[in-house]
């Protein structure tokens, strides 16, 4: 009996060993994983798609804290994986990243160093002739900005795509301005005047300079999630409106149930980062900025401000007419078309 048990255990171990082939593979469809270790954190990079293209799109998740695999399986990701290799990377303390470090290690310098290590790892693993593009969503856009304004790092990548990427020194001011501009547009059309005028009177009266109290935030959130939602629902394609769509293709085999979120205190400090015109002018990399017209989390006004100050010779700002904070979900075909054109031009 002992021998039988040992035999079964050995078979399982052999199977486990064989399943963990470590060498990089190049084909039109690959599914593999490698890790980047830096500063007490082991951060997984899940590679999916066409590695034979030698073009890698590094997806930088929003939050931070959702885990990059939350977008895997969405139509836009599936389509991009046909032409390029998507790399879903879990930043430290998010998704499946593990290790041990102090909260102080969750700062922008360390995160940029982590991302730099990932980019260099891709070059080491898949070859120096690999083309690398960063795709940052929401917070991920801000992380990409931080990477690009640091030293000469931008020379290692072929371009970056910001999807509703954050960059502001006053979120509420930007958001309120965006809502008021939208309200003015709708009032000019003569649609639902009473409701839009209520929106105008509320948002005009908001103190946009000082921080809002928790109670004021709750009232404001109610205006956005209830009243504004009803007014613009017909303009948005199914999918997301004010927040991300929950993935219905979640791969539990890989991701499981995930409780690994970036601590709120660290997240708050990361959200204070802002790059002004001087910083933005450092960026020469090809840039594609995509925002949703009905995004009241990161309004397009922020993307427009980034666009205005970039030094890049090849920069594009797209405002999707039927999207909120997740344009890649709501207008997936247009998104894939824009991204593919951009990458093919610069890879």
């Amino acid at each position, binding site marked *: *009996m*002992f021998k*039988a*048990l040992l035999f*079964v*255990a050995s*078979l*399982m171990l052999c*199977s*486990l060993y*064989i*399943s*963990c082939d*470590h060498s990089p593979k190049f084909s039109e469809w690959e*599914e*593999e*994983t*490698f*890790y*980047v*270790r*830096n*500063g007490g*954190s*082991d951060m*997984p990079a*899940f590679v*999916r798609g066409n590695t034979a293209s030698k073009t890698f799109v590094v997806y930088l998740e929003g939050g931070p804290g959702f885990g990059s695999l939350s977008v*895997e*399986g969405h139509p836009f990701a599936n389509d991009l994986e046909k032409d390029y290799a998507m790399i879903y990377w879990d930043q*430290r*303390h998010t998704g*499946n*990243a*593990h*290790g*041990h*470090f*102090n*909260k102080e290690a*969750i700062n922008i310098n360390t995160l940029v*160093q982590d991302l730099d*290590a990932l980019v*260099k*790892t891709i070059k*080491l*693993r898949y070859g120096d002739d690999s083309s690398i593009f960063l795709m940052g969503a929401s917070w991920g856009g801000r992380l990409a900005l931080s990477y690009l304004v640091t030293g000469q790092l931008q020379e290692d990548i072929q371009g970056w795509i910001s999807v509703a990427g954050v960059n502001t020194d006053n979120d509420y001011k930007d958001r309120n301005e965006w809502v008021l501009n939208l309200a003015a547009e709708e009032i000019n059309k003569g649609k639902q005047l009473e409701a839009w005028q209520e929106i105008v009177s509320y948002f005009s009266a908001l103190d946009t300079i000082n921080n809002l109290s928790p109670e004021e935030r709750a009232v404001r959130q109610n205006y956005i999630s209830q009243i504004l939602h009803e007014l613009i629902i017909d303009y948005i394609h199914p999918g997301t409106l004010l927040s991300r769509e929950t993935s219905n*293709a*979640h*791969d*539990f*085999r*890989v*991701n*499981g*149930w995930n*409780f*690994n979120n970036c*601590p709120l205190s*660290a997240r708050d400090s990361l959200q204070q980062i802002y790059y002004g015109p001087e910083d933005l002018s450092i960026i020469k990399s090809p840039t594609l900025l995509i925002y949703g017209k009905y995004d009241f989390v990161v309004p397009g006004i922020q993307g427009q401000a980034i666009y205005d100050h970039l030094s890049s010779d090849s920069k594009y700002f797209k405002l999707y007419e039927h999207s909120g904070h997740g344009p890649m979900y709501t207008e997936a075909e247009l998104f894939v078309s824009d991204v593919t054109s951009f990458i093919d031009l610069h890879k």
Partner: protein
Amino acid sequence: MPFLMFHHTSHFKSLAYIGLFGLLFSIKSLAQDSSQPVKTIPIVVSYFSHEYIHPGLKLGTEHVIHQWGKAKNSNRHYKPNRISLHPQLAFNVHYENHSVWIANLELSVQHQLFLGWHLAYSLGIGNLRHLNWGTTYELQDDGSLEAKRWASRSYFLPNVNAEIGKRINSKCSAFSKITAAARTNYNTIPILPQVYWEIGIKIHVPTKSKGSSTSKPA
């Protein structure tokens, strides 16, 4: 990637099949009861999953520290309640993500119910070794990268367990067990909750010497 799509996971499937066949084989070989008292050693083998989904295997044994209560049936070696120590070695696999190895020691109290059913509760302390899937590239102080295979980190894993089981015969019992564990010092948080579920058998494997028995079948 749709949920539970396995076409890229032949090794993952074979792992589960091997474990299942191993369990069935072990049960079959012990299906016949025997009243001959022989010296045995208890071996516990189980399918050991993390969050019900990620498959694995656990092997362990049992050392009875104390047992009490009146023997029932015709089994003169059987006593209904016991306190035992359980050294265990387990692993499970998160496909394309990581695998874990756990060395664990449990202290359990088992109560007999009726018709051969039992309940057991235990406290355990374990060491969890988290092995990264694929190659790990470590950034060095000079900015270079060092590629490492089988890179891993260890975590302390205290756990509590509840088990229900039934005696099949004097050599064999089956059980199902749920474990709530805390992976400590995970990133910046002191405790990351973990849930494991297992289903398996405890078999009393005869050793070479016969005559006297030290076995305490479940």
